[in-house]
């Protein structure tokens, strides 16, 4: 018996038909044309919540001048913060998607001791990376992702790659977000901008 191309066509057309209908009825269905997701940039209100967060965590007060208050002012601030206890300042609300940030905010987060993740390949990472950053190469070995098991899902994570032209940080950021880390930032300027600003860097392999 010869191959019936009519049958093949029937099978394929049925699959297209059923697939399309099922997808339109399925609540988990996806748009027929995948949209290029636009990055949402974090607004400045975060900076204020970060200031509060820093005080609560009692980290080194190395932030810029307007943020460093005198102790009396701090106390006053804390008093005014009391009515807002529903939204504890040391907890940033979970995001609905990873948010993009620019260098100024990235640096502020860096000063807070927030964990940075380098999405570039290990050789690029070893040649130089943001001080203290962990390497999870998006296109690299799956084992690098095991570092994530040591992180708390409530932690703020900042993902970056080489700069505004690369998309590794966006992919990795979304992947990590899907894994349940709901406070993921994508540092848009990336390594190049960090280097330009002469912010702290390091060389070599993963710290851990």
């Amino acid at each position: 018996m010869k191959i019936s191309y009519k049958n093949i066509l029937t099978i394929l057309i049925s699959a297209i038909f059923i697939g399309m209908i099922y997808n339109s009825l399925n609540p988990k269905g996806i748009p027929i044309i995948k949209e290029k997701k636009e990055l949402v940039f974090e607004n400045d209100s975060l900076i204020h919540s970060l200031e509060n967060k820093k005080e609560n965590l009692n980290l080194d007060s190395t932030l810029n001048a307007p943020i460093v208050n005198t102790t009396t002012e701090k106390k006053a601030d804390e008093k005014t913060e009391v009515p807002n206890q529903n939204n504890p300042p040391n907890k940033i609300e979970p995001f609905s998607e990873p948010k993009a940030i620019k260098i100024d905010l990235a640096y502020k987060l860096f000063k807070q001791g927030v964990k940075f993740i380098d999405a570039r390949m290990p050789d690029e990472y070893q040649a130089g990376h943001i001080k203290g950053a962990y390497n999870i190469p998006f296109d690299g070995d799956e084992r690098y992702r095991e570092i994530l098991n040591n992180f708390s899902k409530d932690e703020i994570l900042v993902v970056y790659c080489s700069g505004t032209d690369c998309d590794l940080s966006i992919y990795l950021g979304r992947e990590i977000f899907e894994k349940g880390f709901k406070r993921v930032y994508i540092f848009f300027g990336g390594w190049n901008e960090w280097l330009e600003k002469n912010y702290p860097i390091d060389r070599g392999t993963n710290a851990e």
Partner: protein
Amino acid sequence: MRNKFLEYFLLLARIFLGFIFIYAGAGKISDPASFSQSIQNYRLFPLEIINIFAIIIPWIEVICGLLLFFGISVKENSLIISSLLFVFTLAVAISMLRGLNFDCGCFGKPSPIGWQKLGENSLMMLLGIILIIYDSKLLNLTSKNENN
């Protein structure tokens, strides 16, 4: 009358391939967004057509798998499945050459791309080609009608 051993081998091959594709397709149908992301990971196709693949390919897999399982249009379904496997294998091979390393998106559970995946796919493709050549008449739903 063909060799009985060959007939049983073809039946087993048919059921095996059919089952694998029903299983793989059903996993993808239940989570189209993940499958769409998997296709995107290969970075081989433009963004605009990825979701169309993600919507249709799982259904081709399930339908061909079911028909193969029951022995309906074995040659045709084997041809479709082998073509799919050829494309999948090619995609995995290209990704390996490019040094990419990610979950292949083959089944519901994570399985990274690599030599093992290439081997599995090639083996299934071989079974598919054997079925295209020899067909499988044993225990199928249409053979009785044809014999009469």
